């Protein structure tokens, strides 16, 4: 099962501990997490279920390419990091 780690910054709003999930794409594993934490969806994805503009996701150290459909591949041994940009004030 892939490991999913969420940015510490999101924890102030919603508790999202490290999780494990099955799936072949980023979308698959995120949906598995959202099934257990439905409120988290709106913090990571926009209304069209694309990755929020200032969020980013790494799979095994590589930034994903498909921010809209989230089709980047995930393996059983992958680690998926969900991060945000460090902008704003």
């Amino acid at each position, binding site marked *: 099962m892939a490991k999913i780690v969420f940015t510490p910054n999101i924890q102030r*709003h919603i508790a999202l501990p490290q999780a494990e999930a099955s799936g072949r794409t980023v979308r698959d594993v995120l949906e598995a997490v959202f099934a257990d934490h439905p409120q988290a969806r709106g913090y990571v994805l926009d*209304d069209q279920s694309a990755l929020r503009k200032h969020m980013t996701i790494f799979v095994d150290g590589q930034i994903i390419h498909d921010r809209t459909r989230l089709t980047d591949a995930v393996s059983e041994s992958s680690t998926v990091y969900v991060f945000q940009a460090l902008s*704003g004030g």
Partner: protein
Amino acid sequence: MSDTLLVSTRKGLFTVARKAKQWEITAVDFLGDNVTIALTDRRDGARYAALDHGHFGVKLHRSTGNGWEEIAVPAYPPKPEGYEEHDMWGRPINWSTTRVWALEAGGADEPGVIWCGTLPGGLFRSNNRGQSWDMIRSLWDHPKRKQWMGGGADLPGIHSIRVDPRNSKRVWIAVSTGGIWFTEDGGASWSLRGEGMRAEYAPPEQTHDPIAQDVHCLAQCRAATQRMWVQHHNGIFVSSNEGESFTEITGVEPSTFGFAVVVHPREPDTAWFVPEIKDEKRIPREGKLVVTRTRNGGKSFEVLTKGLPQSHAYDVVYRHALALDEGGERLAFGSTTGGFWVSEDQGDSWACVTHTLPPVYAVHFA
């Protein structure tokens, strides 16, 4: 009369309350977070606060006395496969709530109904105190909606929602930029209003087009709903027929430019504004912060200064940041530079509560 104010700021929601001797900050919620607007529903006492968490999106919270809880936030419908929509600069418009810019309670006969205006232009209605939201598709799908444009913000947005106190199915909204829209069937159908408004800065073909009007704020007299006041990018306009047509008010010193307007709940000819130098500078003229008031439908204006800084004041007051209480006696406003003032005599005199708030976005008598 209300003794409590909700002040939405870039760094939290402040409660300002009237004490024995003065108005004071009595509570801070969401400290550090960007609160774009707040509402107290006088029908049931519930409070609502819209937060913009930036990276993590827009959220809504509700308090019913036992602390705040996150509730549903208006969400745009799935964009049809392959459909692309662009703004006038050619940038794609994402169908996603970018900001909650208006929150209003429904009519007295509609307990639990809340209206919500958003960027990029979606209007939403909840029938259950924000537990869920329905987009008003009749407006979003209206072919003319695509002519809305960004004004102060990059995206078009609905900032004013006025529900007819006599008939809750009659609702007016105002868009920056996109004019004034009216429904008399609870949102099933919409028509464009606002003949007579004028956008001097627009191309000649659009100068008088009602959909090209950059309404900054729309106010309506509760006791005389035919009377509407508009603070427009181009100046001040007044209507005596529920916004069907407007007359421009000119020659008001120090300026007719500004963002906010409020109208007395029972005296339709009495309205208040906070003028700025138009429009590329947007600061009080000569560094003197003033409020203007008309009591005769715009024929003349008084410049109210008592208690307001008259030297090197660069306070800008946004469209939701001037408030009038239901009694029509108390006013309050907050500024982009963190000033906050209250008047208990219709603006004749003002008391500064603080000048060190975060930038103020919205002020609301609770």
